């Protein structure tokens, strides 16, 4: 009898205990639980271009300028700015109320140190640094950029929305060498920003969980939030980024209401998401992502432009898009090096990338002297957004008579191997695939694929083309938007002639979130200000 009573009491206790989470949930702070596209481990948005670190940057840091939904650069931390008549001196004044998370005021010194470090790592920053005579402090809130030559992209540079975004950090943090992570340089202060959220460092579990708390001291701008610009009004107490390794589990957790937001659910699971009446799919980043096939210019046969052109002729974008995304609602043909739907979109000199021209490709191979060398394609098997590309390229190149080999490996190995300039047979490579967000491919400077400095300064693949570099320099110096556009078009034509890389289409990756969230902003980066939770 006693045993039965004990069992009964224990069962009641367990049932009561299982009911506890629901009671506790009702009492807890307003928290958005989000699953982002990747786990956060490194926290320095200047040392690397990874998008998850950029997204983290937007949570805890702020920027001097930011891009709005008209793709115009608007002041953000800056109250006002003015330009001298010769456009060589730019004066910036910080707005009132800017404070670091430790309570200290944001000063000109902080801004100058941050921009100096950023300009050592970022392609646009390097271009700006090349034209800069000096950054000059006027007082604690005012500073100047003094140029030694005209530079048409000052605001586009320091207001660029994507990696590396010029986030403003405390001077003592930003003084870290450009190749040393801030956590290593300033172990006590690396998490301090002035942005709308504070980094809850005690709850940080790298690769697993990141917690942000509302920065009650943040003074938002008065303008309405628009993309990365405007008032960053935080309407929840906490945001938690939880890394869920499995895509199916992530969607199940969203359906069950255990999480509120998925930044990038896989397309295969859209039917399940669409069935749920409580979830909305929101294509917040209209610029999407663009796939690339990057060719190594350093070694035969691709050191010959005709062989590269043959590859360009062999490609059908639809094949890549269909295999990766599947639903045409979420992809589009884009034969442009600059994001389709943005200012510099152009197909000048592009072949029809919906219809491969196999015969012409074969002829170009012949003219290029292709002798049947084995083409090595780096094929990551652990990255869903890239894995399907390799076999598609393999088939396309085999069709035109190339001897192709896929080298299966993990993404970390691709990252290590693509940095090697050795001959393919000695540990190098011929082709790898990657993708960039549209916001990184807006113009010939931000688009790393247009860099033609060769083995000593270019993006992997190392194209070397003095003509291209001259046109990019002209683009940077040009201050007339119409002329800039004409130069961008000429660059596009040259890029297709030389095959800087092979564009393989534009894809949309909508976020999925519960209808209890409202106010989720459009933009090239997922952000959590302006978002309310019922």
């Amino acid at each position: 009898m006693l045993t039965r009573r004990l069992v009964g009491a224990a069962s009641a206790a367990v049932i009561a205990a299982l009911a506890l989470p629901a009671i506790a949930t009702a009492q807890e702070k307003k928290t958005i639980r989000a699953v982002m596209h990747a786990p956060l481990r490194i926290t320095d948005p200047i040392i690397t271009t990874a998008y998850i670190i950029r997204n983290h940057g937007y949570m805890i840091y702020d920027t001097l300028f930011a891009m709005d939904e008209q793709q115009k650069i608007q002041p953000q931390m800056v109250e006002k700015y003015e330009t001298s008549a010769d456009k060589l001196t730019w004066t910036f004044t910080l707005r009132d109320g800017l404070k670091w998370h430790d309570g200290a005021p944001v000063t000109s010194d902080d801004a100058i140190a941050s921009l100096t470090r950023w300009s050592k790592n970022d392609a646009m920053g390097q271009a700006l640094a090349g034209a800069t005579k000096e950054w000059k402090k006027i007082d604690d809130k005012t500073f100047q950029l003094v140029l030694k030559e005209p530079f048409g992209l000052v605001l586009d540079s320091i207001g660029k929305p994507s990696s590396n975004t010029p986030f403003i950090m405390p001077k003592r943090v930003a003084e870290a060498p450009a190749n040393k992570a801030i956590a290593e340089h300033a172990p006590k202060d690396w998490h301090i920003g002035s942005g709308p959220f504070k980094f809850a460092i005690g709850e940080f579990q790298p690769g697993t969980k990141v917690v942000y708390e509302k920065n009650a001291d943040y003074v938002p701008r008065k303008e309405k939030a628009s993309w990365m610009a405007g008032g960053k009004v935080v309407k929840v107490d906490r945001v938690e980024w939880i890394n869920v390794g499995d895509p199916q589990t992530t969607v199940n957790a969203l359906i069950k209401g255990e999480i509120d937001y998925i930044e990038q659910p896989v397309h295969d699971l859209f039917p399940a998401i669409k069935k749920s009446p409580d979830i909305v799919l929101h294509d917040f980043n209209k610029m999407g992502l663009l796939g690339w096939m990057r060719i190594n210019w350093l070694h035969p046969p691709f050191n010959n432009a005709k062989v590269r052109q043959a590859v360009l002729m062999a490609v059908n974008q639809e094949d890549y898009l269909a295999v990766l995304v599947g639903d045409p609602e979420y992809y589009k043909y884009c034969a442009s090096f600059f994001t389709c739907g943005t200012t510099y979109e152009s197909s000048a000199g592009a072949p029809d990338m919906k219809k491969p021209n196999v015969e012409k490709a074969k002829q170009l191979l012949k003219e290029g002297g292709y002798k049947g060398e084995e083409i090595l394609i780096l094929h990551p098997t652990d990255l869903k957004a890239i894995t399907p590309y390799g076999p598609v390229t393999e088939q396309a190149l085999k069709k035109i008579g190339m001897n192709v080999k896929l080298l299966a490996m993990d993404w970390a190995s691709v990252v290590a191997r693509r940095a090697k300039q050795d001959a393919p047979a000695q540990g190098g490579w011929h082709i790898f695939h990657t993708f960039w967000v549209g916001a990184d491919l807006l113009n010939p400077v931000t688009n790393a694929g247009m860099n033609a400095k060769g083995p000593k300064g270019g993006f992997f693949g190392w194209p070397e083309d003095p003509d291209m570099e001259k046109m990019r320099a002209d683009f940077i110096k040009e201050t007339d938007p119409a002329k800039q556009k004409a130069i961008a078009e000429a660059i596009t034509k040259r890029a297709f002639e030389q095959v800087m890389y092979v564009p393989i289409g534009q894809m949309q990756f909508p976020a999925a979130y519960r209808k209890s969230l409202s106010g989720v902003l459009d933009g090239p980066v997922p952000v959590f200000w302006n978002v309310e939770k019922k």
Partner: protein
Amino acid sequence: MGRFLALRLIATIPVMGVVAIVVFVLVRLDRGKAAAQLCGDICPPERLAEIMTRLGMDKPLWEQFGLWLLQLLQGDFGRSIQSQIPVLKLIGDRVEPTLSLAATTLLFSVLVAVPMGVVAAWQHGRWPDRLIMIFSVIGFSVPVFVLGYVLILAFPLSLGWLHVQGFQSIGAGLGGFLARITLPTLALSVIYIALVARITRTSMLEALSQDYIRTAYAKGAATRTVLIAHALRNAAVPIVSVIGIGLVLLIGGVVVTETVFNIPGIGRLTVDAILGSDYPIIQGVLLVFSVIYVLINLVIDVLYTLLDPRIRY
């Protein structure tokens, strides 16, 4: 016994030495990966070289090993290359979910599997035995991730019971802990129940065929007494061995379960570290688990002497 324990503990030192060398060499075979990951998308060769130097990767392998060993002897497992957080802290943060899952799985499995094995042996050749063996075959055959998804579909999604994913420390509330750990425990237990039940059945069958069992029945002992006090006790040594080895396999093999149910344990830490080429973490985890493996084997050896007084060291 004291001498035995001391000798066994001393014997772990060369074992750990070999483990340390193997772990170090294996992890460093592709030294460039970690540096390339840190270098990012725009990575000129000179920057890659700078990072290699900063991480000490340009030094000869023996020198790197010496430095690492020196650190280890001072109790310093190093820091994560990516997050700069001490490796021991990262492991410490992840131990609780993994040990909790291993413990609940072990407890549940033993409580279910041992009686199942005893009943199967007792009812040898009859329908309970066949039923249990059918379950055992299915248990061995169904992959954990398939079972995990089926359980998620059946309970949280269809019935609204329990959680799909996540982990909550038992210290933060028993209810939250149970709501999250139940499904992964069930998913992970099935194969373990199948294993322990089969071993229990086999050991019990052997024990039940011995003369002393016939003697016990002849003396008029009740079936329950014969099965538990006489047969099971004598059949316990192989069962304990399997449970012990199974525990080690459980800790090492929870990766899939941790992924399906999003449990932030050691398994996921290891996979993340491998994907990110964060070799101080990989080395740290492997070393810690080698120590645990050695200690569990030691505990099993000691348990033998308690279960079978004939065993002496």
